[in-house]
């Protein structure tokens, strides 16, 4: 509603009133927290609030590919490399690429983690109940790390299934700047997180279908959307990776199996 009023004012009233509106809008950045789900705001304002800069220079880009079932808008600054995606239904920034700030001092992993945690906590609802599931240092061919990457996820149920809500943050090692942000916003989990098919059973299903020797495997219990489509129902799935590194046959070198953890049905195979 507020957005509609602002559009009307800007379109039809003399510049003095438009300037007053701009002042009113700018003052809202000084006091409000980052936009949360449920508020209504212009997508570009959501971006500017996300970075804490009401004058951030970005423009709307042509529609970007987005996950099936997601409505989103993309904003870019082609000069300095900013790129942002706003989920229009969740009213949140769901991914961001931001160049490192020139000001800043090198950070180690512990400091980078603290920076990433603070960034996530100030912008993601429910961040405090997420669990760190991976942290890694990215570097250039054996040199010192150039970036620290962290991934958080909710863990659900007795077997700690990885839930839908995920957050990934990357911190530039040279400046301590947050340079990448990605989230899958929190939604109500509508599927039972108690698997009916055990990890071993799911692995057996995958290996039987694979029909080649397996030298290594991994598996993880996850909640996700069927067919990666957020307009479809959620599923509890075993995400299984099979490897046969010794095989010269590309078909036999490995595959990923997605197995329904309630029915044992193979939902997808990647090879």
């Amino acid at each position, binding site marked *: 509603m507020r957005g509609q009023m602002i559009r009307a004012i800007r379109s039809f009233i003399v510049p003095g009133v438009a300037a007053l509106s701009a002042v009113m809008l700018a003052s809202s950045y000084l006091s409000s927290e980052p936009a949360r789900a449920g508020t209504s705001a212009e997508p570009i304002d959501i971006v500017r609030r996300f970075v804490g800069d009401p004058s951030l220079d970005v423009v709307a880009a042509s529609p970007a590919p987005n996950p099936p079932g997601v409505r989103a808008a993309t904003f870019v600054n082609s000069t300095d490399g900013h790129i942002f995606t706003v989920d229009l239904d969740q009213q949140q920034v769901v991914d961001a690429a931001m160049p490192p700030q020139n000001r800043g001092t090198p950070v180690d992993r512990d400091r980078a983690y603290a920076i990433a945690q603070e960034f996530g906590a100030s912008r993601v609802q429910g961040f405090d109940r997420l669990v760190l599931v991976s942290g890694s240092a990215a570097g250039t061919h054996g040199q010192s790390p150039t970036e620290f990457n962290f991934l958080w996820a909710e863990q659900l149920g007795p077997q700690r299934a990885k839930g839908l809500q995920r957050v990934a943050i990357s911190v530039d090692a040279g400046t301590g700047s947050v340079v*990448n942000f990605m989230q899958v916003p929190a939604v109500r989990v509508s599927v039972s997180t108690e698997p009916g098919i055990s990890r071993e059973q799911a692995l057996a299903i995958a290996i039987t279908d694979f029909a080649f020797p397996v030298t290594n495997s991994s598996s993880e219990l996850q909640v996700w*959307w069927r067919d990666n489509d957020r307009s479809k129902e959620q599923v509890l799935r075993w995400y299984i990776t099979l490897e046969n590194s010794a095989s010269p046959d590309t078909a036999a070198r490995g595959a990923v199996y997605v197995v329904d953890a309630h029915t044992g049905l*193979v939902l997808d195979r990647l090879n």
Partner: protein
Amino acid sequence: MKLLSATLTGPECRRLSTLLVIAVVVAVLTLPLHGPVTFATDETHNPPWSDNFHFKFADGSYTIDAAEPATTQQDAVGYAADYWYNRDETFVRGKLYDDAVWSIYTHANSQSVQIYNGSSNTWFTKAEVRSYNLSGLKVAVWYGCKTAQYTTTYGDDHITRAAYVSGAGASLGFYKDVYMSGGTTAGPAYTWSEHFWYSMRYGNTIYTASKYARDKFYQERGDYGGVDAFSIWGNSSQKMTPAGYK
């Protein structure tokens, strides 16, 4: 030698044979000094060329569609962009040294990538890449398993690095397995490609685009599927824009 022996005496024949052997040995030993064989110098075109390759393999796995979003985004910024399906190795190789931007989506290892022309497989090797002058190539993308993997046998001498050593501005590969095709979902190769090249189109560096594609891939599929294990050789700030040769 029988013909020669009809006109030469025995000792002369033996001397000639000895001289021939010595000449061959000397030629072989000095071969490295002649430098790598260059199949072609890079040519430039206006508008600059970009080519992208995808396949459907005999085992049913595929990357078909992965090259198409690459082409769309390259075309949008001024390249004469094309995508090719199941072309043979000669064709694929020939584009590499004439292109400003080049990408391939296929089965691979650290030393070679698989080329399938619809009936037979061949392997486009690191050695072949090293034989080219790629000084006009801005960006090369090797979407395939372990195309940038460090190995105990070869170290970091893999096909991704080979393109950079041969003159490319930046060459991108992966040091883990990545996946080609899906069953009920869009193929992982396609998912990665559409996000990577979208980012490149809007003026991002190859490094930023790789991370953008990584994050978008995860958002869609709920797992990184190996695309977080990217490795860039050369200039990580290399851009595709503005359209042109390096």
